Structures are given as C-alpha cells and as structure tokens.
C-alpha cells in the first residue's frame, strides 16, 4: 500500500493523500486546493500574452477565465497546468510553489477542447490511465473507473473506442478521465465549444453538479459569456493579457468594472452622460440630448462626465412619458418567442436596445413608432 501511494505522496509534498485514501473519501466535499496566481507575466517577444496576473482562488471554487480569443486565458491555464514557462511570478497551490514541478507530477485533471482522448485505447482504458499512472491497484482502479463512468452516464459505452462515439460522449469521457483520481484541481480548456448548443447546455449542468459532488477546485476557460455566467462561482474577465475584473456572475453582469466588461458580458446600452447633481449615491445625469435621469452609483468619485450602462431587459417602453424616461423612435423590432428585441433611436442621437417579455396585451411595435423608454435609477450603473 505504501509503495503504491509514493507517487502521489511525492506530488503532494507533505500533505499525504494516497490514491486509496482519496478513493475512500469519495464524494467528500472540500478536497479542492487553493491556488494563488502571483504576479505572473508571460510574453512572446514583444507580445505580452499575460501581464501581471495576480489573484487567489479559494479551495473548491469554480472559477471561469472569460475573454475573447488572444486575451491570455488559455495561456494562464497552460501555465497552471505546467505546459508553459513564464517570465516572472509564481503559482502556489495550497501555499506551495508549483512552477518547478513537472506537469505530470502536479496531480491535476485536465479537459481539452479537442477532447484529446487516446485513440488507441477504449473508454475504460482512457479513464483508467491516470489511475494506472498513479499506481493504484487493479481492483480499486476497476471499481473507481466503473463509478466514474456511471457518474458520467457512460457505463454502456465502457468498451467502445473514442472514434465510435459522438462529440458529447467523447467529452464526457474526457471529463471522466480528468476526475477519476478525484484531483484537487481540474483544468478545463473550452471543453464545450466544439459541441452544439443543446448538448452544451446539458453538459454545463452536468459539470456544475459534478463540481458539487467531488468538490475539486475547477478552472474553466471559455469565450462564451453565457456559459461563464451560468456555471461559475466567480468569473475573471481577461482582455489583451490583463485581468480586468474578478467577481461573481451577478456582480460582473450588474456592476461591470469597465466598458469592455459591460459590452463583452451580456447585451448592453452604453450612454455617455454628464453629471448634473450628486446626492450621496444617487446621481442626476444628463445625456447628450439634454434629457435628465437618475442613477445609482457606488463610485463616489465619478467625474463630471461618465458612461452609464443600462441592460436592455431593464428598460420599459410606454406610450406616455414617465419620470426617468427618454423619447425614442423604433428602428427595428424582432420577435424572438418569449422576448421582443427592439432597437430604437433616442431623441437627440444614440441607439438604444430594449428586450422585453412578450405579452398578449401589447402589440408588436412598428418601425417608426414614437415611444418612451424608461428605467429605474437602480438599473442604471455608472462605469468607472
């Protein structure tokens, strides 16, 4: 027993957790590691792929790295996995530096966009691979592999080759392989972007539940903001190698830090305004056409001009003027089923996008209709 677990013990440093002990601790929450990214910088020649990334991940947290392609999110994941060297900084797992540790000794699980299943092995052999490498005995391996396949609803496919399975099934096998050791950290590199929408949504839920069951820390990379909002405990938004904001999905969506975050996450109306009056956290603002409205802000030192964010679904349309309202002209109206998507022109210039639920009582607006758009003071967020 002791001989078998040496490998894993070596990987964990002085925290001795052998494969068997962890096998016994199945489904116990709280096995996730804390990760500290400390001033990590990575550049290729003149191109800075990652600039001073500096944040902590709590044990067992589901954190998503969100950003457009080339923003550095995959670079960061590969650095944590050990596939990429860095210029400076350090990565700490459970308080211990890991950058000098070879990837295969870090004991993480990883899921790739291209599945990366070994085409020369069956599903069972693929999932058993990490256990064999860790030196877990055959009975435990067989039992654990069967459990994991069961958990991923793959028991019927155990003997198949990866090439005989659909994309969704293959990715579930890849997830099974990544979690079979109950690793303390699971890295996921855009695991769902090769799948169609419906499949993506169902596997999103599966991964979410899996996270609750096994309790590993999960780092999830995606460029799909919807996916990030649905799945994460916290989201780190990256742009051009910089981490712009790290916060919970609701915070990111409701109170984005910058224009970039506001426009990258969800649909948004960004309106340039002038500050008219300030009463504590309540501001009175004026848009370019001179219409005034009120907004809430946590940002005490907002200057005399600012940009405000109003989410399209927070805007109400009416035929008559109301407090905090702007006259609009409808330029396009789309029926999306449960929602109406209305684009309009604000009086005095500026476009406004409105999403509202479809109701029997209201007729579809027509192009050219002159209406009023209004929103509550709390639905209006002043960007810094």
């Amino acid at each position, binding site marked *: 027993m002791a001989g078998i677990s040496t490998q894993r013990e070596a990987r964990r440093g002085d925290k001795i957790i052998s494969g068997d002990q962890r096998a016994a601790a199945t489904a116990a929450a709280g096995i996730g590691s804390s990760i500290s990214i400390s001033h990590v910088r990575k550049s290729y020649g003149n191109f800075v792929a990652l600039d001073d990334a500096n944040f902590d991940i709590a044990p067992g947290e589901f954190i998503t790295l969100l950003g457009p392609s080339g923003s550095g999110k995959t670079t960061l994941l590969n650095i944590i996995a050990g596939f990429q060297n860095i210029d400076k900084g350090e990565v700490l797992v459970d308080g211990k530096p890991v950058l000098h540790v070879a990837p*295969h000794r870090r004991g993480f*699980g*990883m899921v790739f966009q291209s599945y*990366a299943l070994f085409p020369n092995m069956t599903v069972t052999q693929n999932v058993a691979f990490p256990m064999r490498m860790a030196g877990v005995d055959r009975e435990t391996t067989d039992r654990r592999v069967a459990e994991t396949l069961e958990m991923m609803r793959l028991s019927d496919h155990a*003997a198949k080759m990866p090439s005989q399975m659909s994309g969704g099934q293959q990715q579930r096998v890849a997830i099974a392989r990544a979690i079979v050791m109950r690793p303390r950290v699971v890295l996921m590199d855009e695991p769902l972007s090769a799948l169609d929408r419906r499949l993506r949504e169902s596997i999103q839920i599966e991964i979410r539940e899996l996270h609750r069951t096994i309790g590993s820390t999960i780092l999830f990379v995606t460029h799909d903001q919807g996916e990030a909002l649905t799945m994460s405990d916290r989201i780190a938004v990256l742009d051009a190698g910089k981490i712009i904001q790290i916060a919970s999905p609701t915070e990111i969506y409701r109170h984005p830090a910058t224009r970039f975050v506001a426009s990258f996450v969800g649909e948004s109306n960004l309106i340039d305004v002038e500050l008219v009056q300030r009463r504590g956290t309540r501001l009175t603002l004026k848009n370019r056409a001179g219409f005034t409205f009120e907004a809430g802000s946590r940002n005490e030192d907002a200057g005399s001009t600012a940009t405000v964010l109003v989410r399209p679904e927070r805007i109400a349309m009416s035929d008559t003027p109301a407090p905090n309202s702007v006259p609009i002209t409808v330029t396009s109206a789309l029926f999306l089923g449960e929602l109406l998507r209305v684009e309009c022109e604000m009086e005095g210039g500026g476009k406004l996008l409105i999403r509202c639920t479809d109701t029997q009582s209201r007729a579809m607006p027509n192009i050219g209709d002159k209406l009023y758009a209004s929103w509550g003071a709390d639905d209006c967020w002043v960007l810094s």
Partner: protein
Amino acid sequence: MTMAQSSVAMRHPARRSYWNLLKNPSILLLPATLFLAVIYVWPLLDLFRLSVGGPTWTSHFERVFSIPLYWQSLVRTMEISITVSALCLFFGYPTALLIHRSQGIVKVMVATAVVLPYFIAILIRTYAWMVLLGRNGPLNKLAIWLGILDQPAELLFNRGSVLIGMTAVLVPLMVLSIYSSVSRIDGNLTRAALASGAGPIAVFWRVLLPLTFPGMGAGFLLVFVSGLGFFITPTLLGGPGDQMFAMHITQQADFLTSEGFLQALAVVLLMITLVVVGIAGHFLGFEFIWGGEKLSGVTPSASKTDRGGRPASGSAVGNLFADAVGWPLLRLLGKLPPSAGTWLVCVMGGFVILALIAPIVIVSIISFSKASFLTFPPPGFSLRWYSKFFSDSDWMSAFTTSLSVAAISAAIAVAFGTSAAIGIVRSSLKAKTAIMLLLVSPIIVPPVVLGLSLYSLFLYFDLIGSRIGLAAAHAIGGIPLVVVIIAASLQGVDRKLEQAAAIHGASPLTVLRKVTLPAIAPGLAAASFFAFLHSFDELVLSLFLSSAHLKTLPLRLWADVNYQLNPVLAVVSTLEVVLVVGGILIARPVLAGSRKAAR
C-alpha cells in the same frame, strides 16, 4: 448566340456525345497509362515470359534455388535489408521527433538536413562514405589522432560498411514517414497524458508509439523494399561476402547465354518485393507507398473494436505482467528528470543529422584540395580539380549528355504525369485507385529488374544508346514523382474556384489556363525539378541502356569510382549538392505550400 449553339448541338447529337467524352477528365489518364503500358508493363510481362521459357516452365527457377550461391545471396539480401530497416527505425524515430519538437528556423534547418541528402544521388552519397571510411579518410585520421588506432584500419569492404552506407542512404525515407505520422497527432494528447500523471517515457510508450505505428510500419517496409533491390551501395562498400541479389543480376547480364535464367533471377526479386508490398498494402493501405494518408479510416478502428469488445483488456496473465512489471516500470521511469527524454532525442537526432551531413561537407571540402590524391584534411586548397573537370572533354560530354537526357526525361514525365494527376483528382472513375497504383508502382520495382526488362525491349527496337530512349526509360521513375506532387497540389485547389470561373463564363480550357494551372504552378515547378533530378542521378537503368556513344555523368562517375577514388569525383559531388541545394531553395516555399494544402 447561345440559341445558335444549342441548335447546332441538337442537330448533331453524336458529335455532342463525342465532345462530352473528350470533356471527361478520366481521358487525361490515358496518355500516361498507355506510355507506362508500353515501356513498363509490357517489358515486365516479357520478363515473366522469358523466365518461364525453359525446358519446363519451372526449370530456370529450380536452378535459382538449387545453386547455393543464389539462394544464399537471397537470404543475405533479406538479412541485410531487415537489419538496415531496423537500424533506420532505431535512428530515424528520434530524428523525426527532433524535427517535430523543434520550432522556427531550427525546425527548418533540421528538416532540410534530413531531406537534402535524400535528393542527392545514391552513388554520390555512397562515394562520400567511401571517402569518409577510406584508409586515408577522416575517420581513420581521427582515430589515430585520438590514439584509438596505431595505424589506419580497413573500414571499407565489409558487412559493417554496407550496413552503415545503406542505413545512411535510406534513413531519410524512414524519418519522413514517421514524421508525417507524428505531425498528425493532436498535440493535446501529449498534454492530456502529462496531465494524467504520465511521465515523458510513459507518454512515449503508451501514446506516441502506438499512434505512430502506421508510420513506423510504412517506413520500415519502404526501407526494406528499397533495400532488397539495392545495387550501388553494396557493390561499392561491400566485400566478396556481401553480394546482394541485385548484384548477381547485373553480373549475369554480362553473359548473354544466361537468357531465361537471368530473367528468373529478376522475377524472384520482383515477386518478393511485390509480395511484401502487397501484404503491407493490405494492412496499411497502398497509400503508404507515396506517403499518403489512408483514405478509408474504417479498417483500423474496426479491428480495434474487436479487441476492446472483450470484457477485460487482455488476458489475466497479461494483466498480471502489466501490473507486476509494465506499469511499475513506466512509473519508475517517470521519476527520471523530464529533460532526459528531450536530451535523448536531441543526442540521437543530432547524431543522425551529423551522419547525413558530414560526408557531404567533407567531400565538398576535398573537392578544393591541392593534393594529387584523395586525403583529408587537404594539405592546401586550390581549384585544380575543378579546372580538370571543366577542361576534360570526356567529363564535359558526359555532363552535357546528362543535362539533355534529364531535360527530355523531365519534359516527358511532367507532360504525362500532370495530365494523369488531373485525371486522378478530377475524374470519378471507379478504377482510380488501381490506376494510381500503376502510376506510382515504378517507385517500388527494383531498378535492376526494370533495367533488365527494358534491355530486351530496347534491343528489339534498336534503342540502346538512344538519347530519347534513355530519357523515356528515366521518365518511368519520374512520372510517380510528378503524379504525387501535382495530385497533392491539385487537392489543395478549391474546386469551388473552378466552378466559380465556369459559372461566370469561362470555358473548361480557360478555367484550366486561368485558374487551375496558376494554382498548381508552384507544384509544377517542384515536380519538374524532381523529375529532372531523378533522371540526372539515374545510374542503374543507364548501365543497361546506354552505349559507348551515350555516357551519362553517373555512368562516368561509376566507372571512376570502381577504378580509382580521385578528387574529380568530389568536384562532381559538390556540383550536384549545389544543384540540389539550389533546387530546394527554389522549391522550398512550394513544398511548404503544398504541405499546407495537403492538410
């Protein structure tokens, strides 16, 4: 206008269908197929006819297998070929990995170092090894200088020098074959294995090796089949005990009395080659001959299913062994520093590249020697051997003969090959694969067999010593090169482009001229160059088909190499290297482009 045309077409339905027949791309396969049928298939069939022409049809074959000299030589040929294949695999794999793992300019340089020698004539590379291993050669000098040897040792004319020479000549084939297999593997597979806790050795053993098995198999068989027909290298580097089968055929060819028996020898060699290729083709797909990907990916996955379908993976004994030895060993090796694998690859790959490049460099240096005999390092430098080469009318006439033969041969090969390649890619003929196989098959036929079969044909038509005849014979081997290169670049041309041109009013000929040909122009240039080089370097067919009036450069080289090793040969070698390097520099963007297109 269109009305008039269509009414004409309606009035002449017969002419219309004839015209349609002409427009069918499969007609483009005809010229090359006919050419090969006359100059390649027919002589080989004639070879069979002569081989069974004894008192009974088996009598010549009985003689082959009853004389110990021949069947012992056959066994020896097999032994040497298998050993060479194994050596190539052993040295070629790390080299392929080295190319795969290096990046940027280093990758280009390493790849060029492997590919460059592949395009230099076997005769010249063998000559370079004779120089390297010779009594006054650099290796002996080095050993004495280091104090390993007291006096120069005889490194040449034994089994060892044959194996070294053949391995050095054939290893690029293996490297390219394995590299094409390695480069197709998803890089994330290695990462996935690492993330699963597998050390570099385990990644290699469990992932890389199984996935590159087809490439290794293809490389092994290509080297083996080429080795079977080897003639130049064993003749120059071997001793009396290293006679290979192909050498007997050329020796027997000097005695005209042995007609029938001689053909039987050739048929035996050809049959062994074809059986090996047939078995290999069955398992790997015949595409392995020209380095193509297997078109039907069904068979391998199906065969794997049978294995995976069993309840447990492998037998109980196998499991026990894997648990007791296999996995612990892999885990133990995982404790090696991760850089160990990288170092091993660098050292072995570097050694192979040194062995490929050093002989060429040394011969180039010797060509500038001041000494009147072959020695390294040269006592001083001069251009005396260059002036001797360029002022010697014998050498110059051989040189110009070779140039003109190669130019004619390249023209024939490119004309037939290009038309055939378009036919292969654009037609929807059922027999396409079979025709492709025919077009490419000259690559695997031992040159000695081909030379012998052509000898009878050329005698019959009184073509021996004819420039056009020799060029046509060289084109047999040039056509496969052209077909493979042009077909690859054609596949990179988007069919939609041609359709777009056609829908906007371009006639088929205009489409060909304005869209297709410009798109494959780089491929055409590369194909012409390689077809030219193939003929320029060709020795074995020329040995059979030339006369006293028609001496090519390789023939002149061959005569001199067998007679005495003088620095003029080094001059010719250096000129050839310059030619190949120049050609590759010109063709490099093309090759890179066609590789991209092939993907």
